[in-house]
Every structure is written in C-alpha cells, then in structure tokens.
C-alpha cells in the first residue's frame, strides 16, 4: 500500500509499533506527508462532538424506559369493580321496587321503568364513580 495514504492512521494512533516505526522512516524523507501532517492533526484536534439537546434525551427516556404500560392495572381493577357495583345496584333497585305480592321476582324486561328509576340509577352511578374513581 502507498505509504503516504497511511498518514491518517499515524495521526489517529491506529498503527502498531512496527507500522509506526516504518511510517516515521517514510515521514523523514517525504515532503508531502510532512506538509499534510499538520492539516491532519488540525482536523483531528478540532473535535466535532457535541451533546444532543437535553429535551431529545428526555424524550428518548419518556418513550422507552419511562413509558407507562398501556393498561394501568390498578385503575382497570377499580373501573371494573365500580362497573360491577353499579350494575348490581341498578338491578337490585329495579327488582326491589317491583317485586309482586306473591314474592316472586318479575322478569326484568317486563318491568316498566320510570324516568325516576333511571335518574335514581344515574345518581347512584355518579356516586360510585365518585367513590371508586377518585
């Protein structure tokens, strides 16, 4: 390989001791390399490394190691429990208001539900949401 071509390896200290010795011998007799030596060193010494903006690094962490799981289990559990409780309240309030005298439960779909019943259920739902989702 052309010795002059190896100048950057010498400047960046990427030569073995043996290669270095050979190259220094070449350098002593090569005007071109001695001339290029300083340009190469100037480029090497002018480091171009700079840190990324802090917000970019924060964003990387937010979207990787600090990412919230899609399902928040404790919240899901609370929601599920609240929904089940509301359903039970709704069913019981309808049934208890419309039990006939024989003591048998009327079938749910035959119960005439009044506007009042619905608004009662609504307010109870609100109450449960307030308690369980707080």
């Amino acid at each position, binding site marked *: 390989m052309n010795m002059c071509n190896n100048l*950057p390896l010498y400047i960046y200290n990427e030569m073995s001791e043996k290669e270095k010795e050979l190259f220094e011998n070449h350098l002593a007799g090569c005007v071109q390399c001695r001339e*290029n030596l300083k340009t190469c060193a100037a480029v090497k*010494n*002018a*480091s*171009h490394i*700079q840190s990324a903006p802090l*917000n*970019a690094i924060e964003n990387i962490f937010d979207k990787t190691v600090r990412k919230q799981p899609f399902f928040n289990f404790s919240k899901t559990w609370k929601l599920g429990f609240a929904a089940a409780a509301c359903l039970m309240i709704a069913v019981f309030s309808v049934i208890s208001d419309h039990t006939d005298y024989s003591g048998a439960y009327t079938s749910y779909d035959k119960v005439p539900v009044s506007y009042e019943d619905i608004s009662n259920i609504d307010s109870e739902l609100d109450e449960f949401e307030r308690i369980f989702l707080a």
Partner: protein
Amino acid sequence: MKQLNDSELVSLFKTGSNEAFEEIVMRYQADVYSYLLSITKSAEISSDILQDSFIRAFKKLKDYNDENKLKNWLFTLSRNMTMDYYRKNNKYLIPLETQDEDEASVIDYLSDNTPQPIEMAISNGISESVKKALEELSGEERELIYLKDSMTFKEIAEMQNKPIGTLLSKFNRALAKLKKILSETEPEVYNEYVQ
C-alpha cells in the same frame, strides 16, 4: 453502570435493566448526534432522528447478538434511520435515479441540497473558518471526518463494509480539499492551524 463495557451493558439490558439502556443512551448520544449533524446539517432533524434511532434501538436491542459492536450497530441504525427519514419526507424527496444507488450517494445528495450551515456550538473549539471549510466537502467526506471523532478506521471499515485503503484515500482527499479551501479563503487561519 459507567464501569461496565458495552457487552456487559447489552447483557444487563437483556435481563430487563432500564438503567443499562439509560447508560447506553448517555454513552453514545453525543457521538450519534454529532454524526447526524454531519449528514443532515440541521440540529432539529438530527434531534428527531436521534430520538427515533434510540427508541428503535430500545425495541431491537433484545434481539441483538453482537455485543462487542454496539457502537457500530448504533451508528448503522442511525444512518439507516436518516435514509428512512429523508425517503419519507416529501420536502427532501430523493430523485428516483439515486434511490437504488449506494447509500453514500444519497448522503451526498442530501447534503448538497440542504444548504443551511452546520449548527454547532461556537465554543467547542473549532474555528468558524474550519467549520465553513468542512461544509464545502462532499457529504461523504464530511461524514467520514465526523465519524473519525468516534471510531477507528477499522471500525468504520467494518460498519460501511469497505476496505480501509478506500477510506484512507477518501480521508486524504478530504484533507487535501480542506487544505486548499483554507489556504485560499482563510490564509491567516490556514497559517495558524497548518503551518
């Protein structure tokens, strides 16, 4: 965490350690970001691609098996993300005839069509004149010079799958250009730096 080498960090990450990933990000963000700046010449675009690259790395790292070449892998990943970014971005639509060519020609195309100056902090030790001179290099040459801040020629050769001799020739050509630009446009800087 800081004492661990790359290979140990990757292994630790695979056991589910978030701290290992944080260390990988902190260890390489500046190298990758500066490299992206050399290609895109835009702080904003570089910041976007940096984020996409590390988010992708987070997803892919568990399947990654060559722990000794993490740095190489991250640079290759961010280089590919840069290509994707520009392919997806209509503003910088790449003409069809360059799409299937060597990626390096795409880098040249991008660099030559984004004339905004490299956005770098003035305080980082390199003079404005040298910066200006670097911008007159081809995208490929500038990419190589920036990569040299973070990698050995051997590592770059492995990453780009090119012989070291080819890279050295390219680097020397870039040096000769820089020398010429500086001596013509900024003789006093040339004297200060080079003589």
